[in-house]
């Protein structure tokens, strides 16, 4: 046998393995699509989420009004289908004369970005720490697990409110507040899976072959774990969005005049008796989005990892 491989040989082998990987990926995606198509509810959820995302991205193009500046002469107009409504403002206007539909669409930007960032960062932190703790064990594991337990002793909202009070309101602080507690969720998930996977034979085999610890974690174990992370991440996104709305509702999240569904609902409360749409409709938008995310997440869980079934 050749003791070394020439450069050309190595390139050829690399390209070959790449082609194989791509073929496998295409097949997995095709299977995934078939599975998804057979679950109409999940598919519906996915489509609705996509609609929200597109609407959020193209908000300036699809809306006719300014989301932050309003015309006070047009304040508190009801939705177009109610007596006194104006088709130019399909969902009515709020107390400052701003078009509700426009604000709701712009509000989707906030919710989606907050949800994605909060979950994304939590996943990054949680997976890294969880994998390390589960793989290496020892004092690192002890410290991190105790810290996680400590964080879990706080009810989520109280913790988030406390952090927001500490940091002040605003977008980045909101993300930090949410992430600071959420990473524990993924930490525990990945750590648990790591503890289960590590004793298995393929890990042993990789070690024998001489792969470094990092390569083992990243290359061998993580691909097996990543599916549950993906599912949990999708399901948690709905929770994150509701958290953001709750914090904005209390005045601790996104500050006016930036449109955020939570603060819109809060300011609409003063006009509940006369103008129910200002409080209600943003909540409907929120409900539909979270519902769709949950439908999609449940479908994903069914397809990727039915083991996760009891919450």
């Amino acid at each position, binding site marked *: 046998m050749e003791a070394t491989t020439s450069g050309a040989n190595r390139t050829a082998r690399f390209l070959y393995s790449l082609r194989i990987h791509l073929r496998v990926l295409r097949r997995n995606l095709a299977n995934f699509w078939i599975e998804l198509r057979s679950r109409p509810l999940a598919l519906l959820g996915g489509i609705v989420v996509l609609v929200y995302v597109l609407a959020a991205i193209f908000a300036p193009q699809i809306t006719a009004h300014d989301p932050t500046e309003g015309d006070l002469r047009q304040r508190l107009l009801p939705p177009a289908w109610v007596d006194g409504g104006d088709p130019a403002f399909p969902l009515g206007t709020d107390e400052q004369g701003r078009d509700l539909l426009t604000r709701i669409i712009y509000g989707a930007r906030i919710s989606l970005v907050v949800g994605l960032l909060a979950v994304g960062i939590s996943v990054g932190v949680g997976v890294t720490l969880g994998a390390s703790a589960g793989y290496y064990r020892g004092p690192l594991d002890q410290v991190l697990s105790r810290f996680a337990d*400590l964080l879990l002793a706080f009810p989520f909202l*109280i913790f988030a409110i406390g952090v927001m009070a500490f940091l002040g309101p605003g977008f980045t602080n909101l993300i930090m507040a949410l992430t600071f507690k959420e990473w524990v969720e993924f930490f525990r998930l990945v750590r648990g899976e790591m503890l289960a996977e590590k004793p298995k034979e393929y890990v042993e085999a990789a070690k024998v072959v001489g792969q470094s610890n990092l390569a083992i974690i990243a290359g061998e174990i993580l691909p097996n774990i990543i599916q549950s992370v993906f599912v949990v991440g999708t399901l948690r996104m709905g929770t994150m969005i509701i958290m953001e709305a709750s914090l904005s509702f209390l005045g601790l999240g996104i500050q006016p005049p930036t449109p955020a569904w939570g603060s819109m609902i809060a300011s609409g409360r003063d006009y509940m008796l006369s103008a129910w749409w200002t409080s209600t409709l943003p909540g409907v938008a929120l409900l539909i989005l979270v519902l769709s995310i949950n439908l999609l997440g449940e479908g994903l869980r069914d397809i990727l990892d039915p083991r996760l079934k009891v919450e």
Partner: protein
Amino acid sequence: MRGVKILERILMTIPIIIGVAVVVFFFMRLTPGDPVDIMMGQGGAVSAGEMEQLRKEFHLDQPLYTQLWIFFKDAAHGDLGYSYTQKRPVSELIAERLPATIELAAGALFFALLVAIPIGIVSAVRQHSLVDQLSMAGAFVGISMPAFWLGIILILLLSVRLNWLPVQGRLTFGVNLEQITGIFVLDSLLAGNWAALADSVKHLILPSVSLGAAPAAIIARVLRSSMVEALRQDYVTLGRAKGQVEFLVVMKHALRNALIPTVTVIGLQVGVLLGGNMIVETVFGWPGLGRLVVKAIFVRDFPLVQGAVMVYAVTFAMANLVVDVLYTYLNPKITL
């Protein structure tokens, strides 16, 4: 033997509670915004001398670890400090507001269990039936809805439009009630004051539903799936083969085992209830601990926030402990 284990668990929660106290302590101290400044802002112009005196009084001039030590020393005696903004002892403030929060949490839990348990059982027994599908759909919507929005919708529909239930607060102005525990429903029962009972219950309904809807949905789903699992087991088939009444088979055997994971989830939901009641309290003007804490955080009232968060953490830890103990009763194979 079990008693020892329970004691052990209680002892294990203490480091966590201490940890919580330390975290809260440092969080508040490191927050920008000098509490003395804020207090002064309420009283008008003050001299530098008075500010110094106030600082001394609240030990704010001492190094952090001394303040921490003082806090723990006092807490061990039940003295949680003195609120800057309310000018009263923290323990007094908390004791005043706590019953309202407990009543709300209990009401929400009661509603959640009342709804979730029958639905969970029926859905499992009649799997895939219309009842099952409707319930699970309803549960799905329940977990996708924010509690404060649900509260607003309920107020709009049931209070404003239909006038069936009151909008805010705990008791209508003018209804007399002698307070013993501070939990109005309990107090009116104890006093035989039926008017107050009806009134306080009416005020409790909407907030409890708002707060309890999401937990109800989650509990129903978990109960259903564990019931489905339990009903598939051999002992159920055996029970039916032995000729046992179906109702008994379901309720005694299957349910008992299905409750095991469910009780864990219920315990987790207590945490949700504690965390969420701030929001619901705000929506319904419920004079509980949650609203107090939110306001206190805004004005940097350290002692009040510390005390309240401590109370929350302790309650949460206790709830978890109760859940764990219940667990061992339900499944003798599991020890603490």
